[in-house]
């Protein structure tokens, strides 16, 4: 058994190693950055259907991330989803007639909100609302419409054939 002093040093090194590991896990692996939140302002928008949007989903303008979704709630009168977004303070010149749409990154990726800027002179600020929104494209709905169309066109042919006979 080594001396008590050596043991204490080795245990100290062990603790340091473990703390270093925790720091690596926090900052390198999980990308923990909201420990020191950047200054941001909140903007809301009402969507008919938000698809798979989640809290912390990214907000993008032209593909560049400018903020993230901070809250999702249901308006119990209109049955619309009220999405609260936090946009970083450095992007404080977004026109207030911009439109927000929910898109999917890749074919099966996560949802994100894309803001398309327009030309108004007044800008979005804390508490303002984005009026123009596009709902999420839900894949099942699209497939449903597609199959419905195929089914209809098949019926048309069938009726024509029946008439011809």
């Amino acid at each position, binding site marked *: *058994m080594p001396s*008590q002093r050596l*043991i*204490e040093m*080795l*245990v100290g*090194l*062990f*603790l340091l*190693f*473990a703390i270093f*590991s*925790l720091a*690596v*896990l*926090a900052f*390198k*692996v*999980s*990308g*923990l950055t909201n420990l020191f939140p950047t200054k941001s302002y909140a903007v809301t928008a009402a969507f008919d259907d938000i698809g798979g949007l989640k809290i912390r989903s990214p907000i993008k303008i032209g593909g560049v991330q400018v903020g993230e979704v901070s809250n999702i709630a249901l308006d119990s009168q209109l049955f619309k989803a009220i999405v609260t977004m936090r946009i970083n303070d450095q992007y404080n010149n977004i026109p207030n007639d911009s439109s927000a749409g929910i898109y999917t990154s890749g074919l099966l990726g996560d949802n994100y909100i894309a803001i398309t800027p327009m030309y108004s002179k007044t800008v979005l600020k804390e508490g303002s609302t984005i009026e123009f929104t596009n709902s999420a494209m839900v894949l099942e709905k699209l497939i449903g419409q597609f199959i419905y169309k195929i089914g209809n066109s098949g019926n048309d042919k069938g009726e024509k054939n029946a008439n011809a006979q």
Partner: protein
Amino acid sequence: MSWIATLGRSGMDSIRELGKSGILLYRILFYPPNIRKGFPLVVQQVYMEGVLSLLIIIVSGLFIGMVLALQGYHTLAKFGASQQLGPLVALSVTRELGPVVTAILFAGRAGSAVTAEIALMKVTEQLSSMEMMAVDPLRRIISPRFWGGFISIPLLTLIFNVVAIYGAYLVGVRWLGLDAGVFWSNMQSSVEFHSDIVNGIIKSIVFGVAVTWIALVQGYFAIPTSAGIASATTRSVVYASLVVLGLDFILTAMMIGEW
């Protein structure tokens, strides 16, 4: 009707065992330790149980990470999703493999040693002679070993996680040629600090209590013969591994189901 009596007897025996173990844990947790005398003992046990387990933890972490990356890469590549290798490895290591494998390795490396040590002390009547000299064996022997394991396991789990992810980085990026930026950024976007890493640490704390408690109970209540030490050591490792796997399921259900 004798089998009903046998069943009843074995039931009462196991409840009595559980009660004795519970009293031992209660006495470890709630008898105030002497800070000035107890602290060096705890440091010694952190050395014996934690620092000396580092080698096996690092080596197995490295290889588990490397194997996960290799297997995951070849499966994901079939779907053209090999850039999701980082999230796959990081999530499976931080949520499940890190805490569970560390606790099982710890049970084999340090838990068995603690059991054998205490059981031998009991066989050679060192514990009784300590009591004769008015030294409480619970404070002098049992309690430092408990706190040593309790402190060591979460720290070893953190180290295991980092080493396994580094092993996956070595295989995925350096050997199989994935892009390093994609590897890390996909990992960062899908691993959350609270729900993945903190939950893994909570799991490892629970496992730490369970593994060291089982090791101490098996040693302290071992039958004082050489065969008794052998079966106590075996049971310490087997029970600890089974309890860790069972508790892991319960904890995962609690964390995912938001009980």
